[in-house]
């Protein structure tokens, strides 16, 4: 970032401005993002409120944000970004908040399953280099103890040849797990 930042360096908005070059202060609270967000009703804080909370640079609200369900409900459909008159990259901010919330393990209890799914997904990729959906689903179910969900799909998926029990492996798996080590586990 060039120039002097208008934010407190330790504030969430400040870090986002520094790391993503996205400035929460640009938001003038028109609410167009919340209006267009498909999952706004599922969220505890709709997108425009998320930005407002960032603007305050208030630690209490920032904490709430990192523990919020909203950041995990976001489906990154980019509708908000697509229509924002100030061209604020909200999805990017959401990614950032998720990553941070995970790192500081402040993940909202209601969102645990979503995170587990993402983790299962990545592990599958980590081990095989590609996504084995069987592996993923099974793994996800083990993590969530939600064995029955979707189980009715399995037979028909098999019948339709949509599932293979032997995951496709790529040759250079070592490289992939290396990539994971260098990115995920370095911190």
């Amino acid at each position, binding site marked *: 970032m060039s120039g002097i930042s208008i934010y407190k360096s330790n504030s969430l908005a400040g870090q986002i401005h520094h790391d993503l070059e996205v400035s929460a202060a640009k938001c003038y609270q028109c*609410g167009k993002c919340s209006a267009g967000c498909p999952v706004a009703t599922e969220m505890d804080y709709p997108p425009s409120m998320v930005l407002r909370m960032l603007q305050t640079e208030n630690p209490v609200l920032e904490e709430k944000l990192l523990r919020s369900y909203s950041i995990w409900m976001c489906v990154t459909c980019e509708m908000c970004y697509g229509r*924002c008159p100030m061209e604020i990259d909200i999805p990017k901010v959401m990614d950032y908040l998720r990553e941070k919330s995970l790192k500081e393990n402040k993940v909202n209890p209601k969102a645990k399953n979503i995170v587990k799914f993402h983790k299962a997904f990545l592990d599958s990729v980590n081990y095989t280099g590609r996504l084995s959906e069987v592996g993923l689903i099974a793994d996800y179910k083990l993590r969530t103890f939600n064995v029955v969900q979707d189980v009715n799909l399995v037979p028909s998926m098999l019948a339709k040849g949509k599932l293979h029990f032997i995951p496709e492996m790529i040759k250079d798996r070592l490289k992939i797990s290396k990539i994971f080590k260098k990115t995920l586990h370095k911190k």
Partner: protein
Amino acid sequence: MARIGVFVCHCGENISATVDCEKVASVASGFPGVAYSTSYKYMCSDPGQNLVKDAIKEYKLDGVVVAACSPRMHEPTFRRATAEAGLNPYLCEMANLREHCSWVHDKVEATTNKAIDTVRTLVEKVKRNTPLHPIRVPVTKTALVIGGGVAGIQAALDIANTGHKVIMVERDPSIGGHMSQLSETFPTLDCSQCILTPRMVEIAQHPNITLYTYAEIESLEGFIGNFKVKIRKKSKSIDEKACTGCGLCSTKCPTKKISSEFEQHLGKRPAIYVPFPQAVPNKPVIDKENCTYYLKGKCRICEKVCPTKAIRFDQPDEILEVEIGAVVVATGFDVKETDFFPEYGYGKYKDVITGLQFERIASASGPTQGMIRRPSDGEIPKTVVFIKCAGSRDPAKGIEYCSKICCMYTAKHAMLYKHKVHDGNAFVFYMDIRAGGKNYEEFVRRAITEDGAQYIRGRVSKVYEKNGKLIVSGADTLLGSMPVEIEADLVVLATASVASKGAEELAQKLHISYDSYKFFSEAHPKLKPVETNTGGIFLAGACQAPKDIPESVAMASGAAVKVAVLFSNDELTREPIVAEVNRIAPPMYSTCVGCFMCQPVCPYQAIEREQIKDRSGNLIKELARINPGLCQGCGTCVALCRSKSIDLHGYTNNQVLAEVVALLND
């Protein structure tokens, strides 16, 4: 040998407290070319001035240096005195011994020495001063008003009523502009047409006003007080003198299905038409793009039915050249069309309309005779959603500014709708309510508290059509950004006001500057709001920035006064501090090599190309010529000229160089 007089002023104690004035005077008397030198307590007093005058006469002085206060203070005083003594005033210079010397230094020898140096410097300058004479340029006392909207009308009438001639040029077939399209006006709700049309008629009938409608500016040349304008009168295909405006042609014209610009495409008009009943002039024009005769070469029905045989199919465009002294630009604004808004359907929904279209729907003379009916099926909408800031305050769409009028007219629209459809619902999506203005805030409150307009603070994300309804999905930011979905029958977008079509081209023709949004720039944001950077060209109304009617009218009157002031003299007199390109004997004519590097740096377009031709008219040389009427004397061209061919009167190279040398060599 020069005969310079030096007059050192004590300014009471102000100078003599730290500067030894007698010494300065006596040293000065020893300077080469100084014929007389003295000091006096108050040089600016009558006796002081007489001292100067008498000395000029007695010692036959050909130059005067008054060593006193700042020239910004008393230069006019002493130049007047000099003139009264029969010496050219521009042979008098002032040495600043007070502000730049006695007041800022202590009583030390250095201070007196500085005073002496300063005097010597000015003496050397004055030796090289030449008699200068104030520039007089005649004023053509005719004003050109471009644009026949409410601003142009106001300006034209005001100027005309001061007794000066006015030429009004309007692009459309009738004057009246956007105001003539409005239904009722905030905050008083009086009918727009009722207050405007009398003014329009006045324009047509005023003895001092010549009106050219369906006409455009071709070019403008010249300078303040002395412009030459070329006006293109587009062919109306009718003989205006013969035409009585009976309207038979329009009623008989077979091509009736042309979308009407005046009705904002909510109504239809024939190919030969008058834009609206109260049009001025009330005479038709033929729209050549749509006239069957012009397209297919047959029809000519209008010609047959015209009782006065006024139709002229072969009428060509006409170019008029007129001399004028001042210009008032009042070209107004345009509104963004609904197809500017992808998220609101790229303009594909008939019932998503602009505020201006709603004005037509609400207007008693409009396509629905003032009944609020929606364009698609003529039904009376039970739920209307008004969306403010449609395009305005939206950097993503390239319009960062606030269009200023939308808050007010949207409140008015909601009101008018509720007045006409009592059981209807009016929802207004807004970001802020900007109602600064006399009785404006009260007006908005009335819309909410008395007429029950539902204001929702939030922007609309999307509008889409679903079985006959327009689904408006927005959010209520005052309820934690809770999504709101409204099933509307009509959606009105308060679309952004933008510079009128062709503003840029016009600005270039007039040599006036404009901002990134193509609105014309005023000379100073606070102190010169109606002037442009080009002398003699003034601005009125929304061509400078979005404005409502009261502001436009006020600005127009302001511009009119500026024109009246300009016209109050037969001649403009100006300081002769102007640049000049040297002229020498043939075959050189001038040391100017005609590189014209000076042309782009001149802020006043004062530098022209002059062609030197021999008797038989062959071009010998092209060189720069500086128009003394336009030159303001900044001297930028002088410093830039590579062949040192330009010099600035009052600050010639010769003079300033002498100053430098004198200042440094005691």
